[in-house]
């Protein structure tokens, strides 16, 4: 029996060295991309099909004092993921350990996951026509290895373990961090049904560019839970109506009378 796993990202310990990003590329054999200076020390603006994790840097001034906030961004692996719901080809699935993984053989690159993820994580490679995102190093995790990013983290900002045990540890650490950063909070406890990657943030999530209350888009909910079920009923109804209509017409003799009319016309021509 596999228990649910968890990765704690303690941003109070992060030094912004970006080793997680490099180790991710190393393990997943992703090519390097041209970096840009976005702001502060941030060199990657967003997720791409080739960059599944990067570090965001925020410089926040409060009372003439700068708070340098760093956050390792990657897939949250939600308990209730929008991407799994949105996927048109059932390519994305949840594992028992709590990870959302894309089956590249099934993916058709429709981009529904990209459009519906509240964090903007999956990205479609327009050439390969496949969607890519952090897989949480599922191959390593299932073989009792730590994810590549966690393994490499030198300041110990990333921690991997059983969910229950690590949550207790996270709450303990939060109490400690709140002494110096009163706004500190855990992000991902209840968001999207409780995420596998949980953050200890030093400030409000908005400051880090995270949605305060991430949700499955209403349009997706409408489409998957309302319109499609209703639509399938309606489709069945329409098919039944066609059958009933045809039968009724046969019984009324509509087809026969048309045939008779035609023969009558021919007869008239002969005479």
């Amino acid at each position: 029996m596999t228990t649910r796993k968890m990765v704690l990202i303690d941003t109070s310990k992060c030094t912004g060295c970006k080793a997680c990003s490099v180790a991710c590329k190393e393990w997943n054999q992703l090519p390097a991309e041209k970096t840009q200076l976005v702001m502060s020390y941030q060199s990657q603006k967003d997720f791409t099909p080739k960059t599944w994790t990067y570090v965001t840097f925020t410089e926040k001034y409060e009372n003439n004092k700068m708070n340098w906030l760093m956050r390792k961004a990657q897939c949250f692996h939600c308990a209730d993921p929008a991407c799994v719901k949105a996927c048109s080809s059932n390519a994305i699935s949840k594992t028992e350990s709590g990870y959302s993984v894309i089956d590249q053989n099934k993916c058709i690159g429709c981009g529904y996951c990209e459009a519906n993820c509240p964090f903007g994580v999956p990205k479609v490679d327009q050439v390969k026509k496949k969607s890519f995102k952090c897989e949480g190093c599922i191959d390593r995790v299932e073989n009792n290895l730590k994810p590549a990013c966690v393994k490499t983290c030198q300041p110990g900002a990333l921690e991997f373990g059983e969910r229950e045990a690590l949550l207790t540890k996270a709450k303990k650490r939060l109490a400690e961090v709140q002494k110096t950063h009163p706004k500190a909070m855990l992000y991902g406890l209840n968001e999207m049904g409780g995420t596998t990657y949980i953050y200890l943030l030093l400030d409000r999530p908005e400051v880090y560019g995270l949605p305060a209350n991430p949700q499955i888009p209403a349009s997706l909910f409408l489409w998957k839970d309302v319109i499609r079920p209703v639509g399938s009923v309606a489709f069945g109804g329409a098919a039944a109506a066609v059958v009933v209509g045809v039968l009724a017409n046969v019984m009324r003799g509509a087809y026969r009378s048309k045939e008779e009319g035609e023969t009558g016309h021919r007869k008239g021509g002969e005479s």
Partner: protein
Amino acid sequence: MDVSRRGFLKLSGISIAALATGLGFDPKVAEAKGYSLRIEGSKKIPSICHFCSGGCGMLLHVKDGKLIHLEGDPDNPVNEGTLCPKAASLSSVAYAPHRPTKPKYRTPGAKDWVDISWDEALDRIAKKMKEVRDTTWKATEQVTDSKTGQTQNLTVNRTEGMVFLGSAEIDNEECYILKKLSQVVGSPYHEHQARI
């Protein structure tokens, strides 16, 4: 025992391989359901990162003679399995297309570099060193005593035409040999690349 440079390298390679198998570094067979590791069946070779003086331990995963993966060595007390971004990216250095793997020579005035053999390169360097050392050799130097104002000839035995340049990319033992060589040759100038 007379060991050539090539022979020494071969010997050390064999001893590293023997050490790796002897200590039981065989990667265990993956027991996953449906998820196989791409490092399955590779040989783990412990090594040291050469980027800084920290000397973090690395495990090189080698399969069919090719480096396929590299990560921190959990048994190394320096880094306990972690690696910084520079060390974590080292596998891309190993197969970088721009990495020179053979000595190259460019004749004066020529535009392109030409591959030459190690023997040729070492012979050429030795010849040039001898030439420069002979022409710039200084056995004595005349100095003026600041107190008495008298000049005197001091034995210095050095060559001032040669500089030895160290690097952050070479390890402790290599630095030791380089420093020793520069003293044997008689050059007072040994400098580190980071100070230029």
